């Protein structure tokens, strides 16, 4: 393998790829990035055996070949190189890769290329084009509700359904449930439903943000999902198992439906949450025409703030985990927030008032007094 490449191009792509390389695998080759030199382009690949990322970039290839070099080290070296052309050559006899720029020369010991797995290209894949902006926005709103708890692996994913004119994502950690049904401008060319690890979607969102104009394509096979963002290809394992039927979990009717102007409630909740430490709940007390948000942590202090709301009937006090409530409110963003409640012991629902299809169900905390 022998090639010449522009440092800036190599560095920017390498940055994205090196993130994926494993930092704690027993297989040494996985801490590396694979360079595959073909005609006039090289492909950089990295994987931690869960997610795989490959990206191709233009290069002047003098000799084909494949090499695996330590990802972090290679990134640090390329970052430090002067601007301009970089020569990269695999020296098989020495088992290293020579990196030259100007008069600087580096020799990086290669890792076992044979241990680097082939990248998934599912033959049975359903392939479709997705609107990148809608996809990324939906991921950002929903994915944070996915569980980080390994004991229920099925909840660590986001259930993604795409078909017709709708893109839907659902995530839950069993304390809250986040659903976004995004209406698209045009019909999709195919449909699929898959439980995708939240981490893979978050990586994808990060990549897509860097190239906002790129086309997003998805290929969904039985075992792998492959996203292509303008030539950067991210693949991931899927999660097998029964995702909770979220429709059953969301109540049909509510006692109270309360509307708050954009960001108003979010600000109050953010402030008062400062005093809800050590798992203390955030209290929402509704009285005639008024909501009082309060928090109290023994030995730390307390806080309260009121805001007007069109509430009538028997007073109602309900407690929530401050972080979960804030997540839901922040996901609505600047628009109007609709808060739907039944009773202090039934889940509350946060909805986007603009009809953008976002719903967020959150379990209450039982209040002792």
């Amino acid at each position: 393998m022998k090639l010449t490449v522009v440092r800036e191009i190599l560095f920017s792509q390498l940055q994205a790829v090196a993130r994926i390389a494993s930092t704690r695998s027993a297989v040494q080759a996985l801490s590396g990035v694979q360079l595959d030199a073909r005609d006039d382009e090289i492909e950089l690949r990295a994987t931690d055996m869960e997610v795989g990322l490959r990206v191709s970039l233009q290069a002047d290839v003098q000799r084909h070949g494949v090499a695996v070099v330590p990802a972090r080290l290679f990134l640090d070296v390329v970052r430090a190189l002067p601007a301009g052309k970089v020569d990269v050559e695999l020296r098989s006899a020495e088992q290293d890769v020579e990196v030259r720029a100007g008069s600087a020369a580096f020799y990086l010991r290669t890792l076992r290329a044979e241990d680097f797995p082939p990248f998934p290209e599912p033959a049975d894949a359903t392939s479709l084009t997705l609107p990148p902006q809608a996809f990324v926005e939906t991921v950002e709103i929903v994915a944070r509700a996915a569980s980080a708890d390994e004991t229920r692996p099925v909840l660590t994913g986001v259930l993604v359904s795409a078909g017709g004119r709708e893109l839907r994502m659902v995530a839950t950690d069993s304390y809250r449930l986040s659903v976004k049904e995004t209406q698209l401008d045009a019909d999709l060319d195919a449909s699929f439903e898959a439980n995708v690890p939240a981490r893979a979607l978050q990586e994808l969102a990060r990549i897509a943000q860097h190239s906002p104009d790129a086309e997003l394509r998805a290929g969904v096979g039985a075992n792998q999902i492959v996203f292509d963002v303008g030539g950067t290809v991210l693949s991931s394992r899927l999660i097998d198992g029964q995702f909770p039927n979220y429709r059953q979990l969301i109540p049909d009717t509510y006692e109270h439906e309360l509307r708050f102007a954009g960001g108003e409630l979010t600000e109050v909740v953010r402030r008062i949450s400062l005093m809800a430490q050590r798992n203390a709940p955030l209290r929402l007390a509704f009285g005639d025409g008024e909501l009082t948000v309060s928090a109290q942590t023994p030995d730390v202090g307390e806080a309260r703030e009121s805001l007007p709301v069109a509430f009538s009937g028997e007073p109602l006090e309900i407690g929530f985990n401050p972080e979960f409530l804030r997540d839901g409110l922040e996901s609505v963003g600047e628009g109007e927030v609709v808060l739907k409640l039944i009773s202090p012991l039934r889940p509350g629902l946060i909805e986007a008032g603009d009809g953008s299809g976002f719903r967020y169900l959150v379990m209450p905390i039982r209040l002792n007094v």
Partner: protein
Amino acid sequence: MNETVTLPGTESHPHARAVLGAALPPGGSPSHAYLFCGPAGSGKRTAARAFAGALLADGAPDPASVLARVQRGSHPDLTWVVPSGAHDLLTGDIAEPVVAAAPHTPFEARRRVFVIERADTMNEEAANRLLKTLEEPPRHAHLVLLTERPGDVRPTIASRCQAVRFDPRPAQEIAARLERDGVDAELAAACAALALGDLQRARRLAAPAGVRLRALAERFARAPLAGSVDERPWRELLELARMAGEPAVAELERGRDDALELVARRDRRRLETEHGERVRRARRRAQTETLDLALALIALWYRDLGCIAFGAPELVAHADRRAELQADAADRDGRVARRAVELVEETRRRLSVNVTEELACEALAFRLEELWSS
């Protein structure tokens, strides 16, 4: 049935050959969980690796590369769990690598294979975590549990796996293998008998360090008979056990230096801590294993005494020490020998709960002396 294929490692195990041969692709349908039972050195690991290779290479575009990576342990769809505790399999060994990973679909193969060594050493929490995976396994997941002590595998685990039997190797076969390696015939026969079907153990006993271990174990065993326990025969034995940890540690140290070269500085401290813990456990494991082997030899010495006392000298395992055994057995009661074996076995069991080894050995020696002088 796919009877023509013999999986490596199952050549001398008809039950394993029948069960696993029938499960091999393309014709067979592998079960979601197997429990490979058989003594150490009977080929369970070799068979598990070969079985995983066959399952993962099925339908692969480049089967040779799959098999090579399965052998090296770098295939993304093969997870191989070795207990990291000094004596047991910890929750962390399976929580993330197996329970959380199993529902994730294969990376490149049609299936995923999880091999768990020493399944009998699973602590209660680890076993409970694994139950769910065994009860409702994802359709692509296949678990292979290995054990030398099937009786110690929790019934909740064992009942959810298909048992695959690996028979102990006959002593003659082991002796022949040792002789082929250049071991003297008499020593080979004795080591083969003492190894109880475990080829690795036979090799260890036939090596110079093994000969020394046998000599020390014999001294320990004979001291209570001669009434010379106050010479503290366990001292040298414990010293030998302490030394046994060093090769394993040296091996790990080398691996650490290689790994540290490649990581960023911020990951280094974490890796070093993790490594320190591994070294500590590896040393402890090697020490306990050596001491356990010595105690097994001591128990066998008393068993042999019993054999002679009961008039069955042909069953003696210490085949190269008949004269000493005959001398020890003179005017002894076989039933006392049996009680002595029980005392030694009790001490072996205690080793796994982290007793102080020196005290345990000392207590054993004095109990034995009391027993034999009664």
